[in-house]
């Protein structure tokens, strides 16, 4: 679920239209304004209840213990937990694998699909890449559990040829970043490919033709024209996937269950936060971890909104 959520937000996020004709204050009148508030009231209520309040409450918990302010004690305690740094390492390693493969492969595939001249072939390819996006959450992990278990896998010959004889071999801790990357890529890459494809459509046919007439090969066109046009989208994809990647939970959680904890139940940070809340009954520690993760996510999204050019607003 973490990284496999449909990346659709990107797809329908055009940069804002400027509306120069707007004359703000003078146009608004009390009646209109009142309806403005009525119209946003329900949403604002939810935003407060499930965006703002949980954040504030987690902050409150993370700096208190049994209601008493304890400064950074909870953070220090979590940091000193022997499971914390390995979990950070696991997540970081996974995010690196995931981002690199996502960026490289998505861009290549988008450009390749875009270069297909036969319309139905291109449509079919995009659809095939996109369809696994329907399978997310626990379902996709379960499906991959089958694929990764040499005894039932459709590609068991491939797994065995790589020296993997059992599920425990395949999901050895060292392999997990790759395993999670494959799962996440499978479910999530298609959406991004479709989005990149759309962005490539933007490049005017004249520029492309001119480049070709100048003798530029497909590779040169890709490198000098298409790639620069995509950078904005690539950075968007990168930031979104980075934020999502740090949230790793369902994949290791279900693999831990399936392997009787050979994949450890404290592999990722969210799992650790879960253990704090549900096994140790330590809500302050759990809140401290989730606050750290939340800060990372908030930081990334804020930087992106205010520094990135994708959301140029009025």
């Amino acid at each position: 679920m973490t990284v496999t959520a449909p990346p659709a937000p990107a797809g329908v996020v055009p940069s804002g239209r400027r509306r120069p004709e707007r004359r703000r204050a003078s146009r608004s009148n009390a009646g209109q304004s009142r309806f403005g508030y009525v119209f946003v009231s329900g949403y604002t209520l939810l935003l407060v209840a499930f965006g703002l309040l949980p954040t504030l409450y987690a902050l409150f918990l993370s700096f208190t213990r049994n209601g008493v302010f304890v400064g950074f004690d909870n953070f220090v305690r979590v940091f000193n937990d022997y499971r914390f740094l390995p979990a950070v390492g696991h997540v970081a390693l996974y995010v690196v694998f995931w981002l690199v493969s996502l960026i490289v492969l998505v861009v290549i595939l988008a450009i390749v699909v875009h270069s297909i001249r036969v319309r139905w072939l291109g449509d079919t390819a995009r659809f095939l890449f996109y369809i696994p996006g329907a399978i997310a959450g626990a379902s996709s992990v379960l499906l991959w559990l089958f694929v990764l278990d040499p005894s039932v896998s459709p590609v068991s010959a491939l797994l065995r040829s790589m020296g993997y004889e059992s599920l425990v071999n395949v999901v050895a801790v060292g392999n997990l970043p790759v395993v999670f990357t494959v799962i996440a890529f499978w479910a999530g890459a298609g959406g991004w490919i479709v989005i990149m494809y759309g962005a490539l459509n933007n490049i005017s046919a004249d520029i492309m033709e001119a480049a070709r007439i100048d003798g530029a090969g497909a590779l040169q066109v890709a490198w000098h024209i298409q790639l620069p046009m995509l950078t904005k989208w690539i950075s968007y994809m990168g930031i979104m996937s980075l934020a999502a990647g740090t949230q790793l939970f369902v994949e290791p959680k279900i693999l831990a269950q399936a392997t009787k904890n050979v994949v450890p139940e404290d592999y990722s940070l969210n799992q650790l936060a879960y253990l704090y809340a549900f096994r140790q009954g330590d809500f302050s520690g759990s809140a401290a971890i989730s606050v750290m993760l939340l800060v990372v996510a908030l930081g990334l999204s804020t930087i992106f909104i205010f520094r990135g050019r994708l959301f140029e607003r009025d």
Partner: protein
Amino acid sequence: MTDLAVRRRRRALTPGQWIGRAFVAVLLLTFAAFFILPIIWLVLAPTKTNSELLLDGPFAFGSFEQLVANWNELFAFGSGVFAVWLGNSAFYSFAALAITLIVSIPAGYALALIEFKGRRLLLVTTLVVMLIPNTALVLPIFLELSAVRLIGSPLAVILPFSFFPFGVYLTYIYFSTAVSRDLLNAARIDGAGELRVFAQVAMPLATPVIALVGFFSFVANWNNYFLPFLVVGGQKIPVQVGLANLLSNVPAFNPTTASSIVIQLPTLALATLLSVAPILLIFLFAQRFLVEGMTAGGTKE
């Protein structure tokens, strides 16, 4: 590029272009296989017996009789608890969908077309929250719901599910680009109240965005595992969480259950398939709409 140009190029392929084309073909085939084979396998697996699954070719078809047998085994498990899970998923997703639409469409409309104080703040907050992965808020929401003793209630799933800033943003973008303010103002000058402007001018134009918000909200909620996993238990879990429970009744993944085998691998595969079936069907039937919608998203610059 003109058709003529295409044809001319096709006729005279240099060796370099041949290699390029071959490379493209291999690349596409490899990735198409990577993306689609697991799904084909998943569709075929429930038609087999356990031993057929282990021994036969991975893409062989079993039999319809076995599919029925596996189906019966799955729905007999725990006196039909799988159907209860599916029902829960549907209930949570549809209830949240309804609330999402009721609150998001007017909110996006107001953000786009009505001037009011705090509009910009609300817009920026929406953007920030929208770009946070939804999992980042799950534990804080759990802690909050636990503090107010709402854990275990269906509301603990439905209300957080209903909070869908992306839907508001989508509506905002739609109304601010697709509906002209002059049209609304004309209606206002004709004496229509705000409510009537919204109901009779804006809403009829909003069908595409309602469909889009509805789709994204439904898919995200149906597939959500983390939040319901933390906030509901027992008979109230949705199918995503139930699926993981099912896993502990499969001997291959839970050694201690071997003495009385409950769920066989093909049945687990069937459960996996059914758990995503609604989403898969929507994807299949709405593919043109979705792929084009997303492509257009990238195009709109």
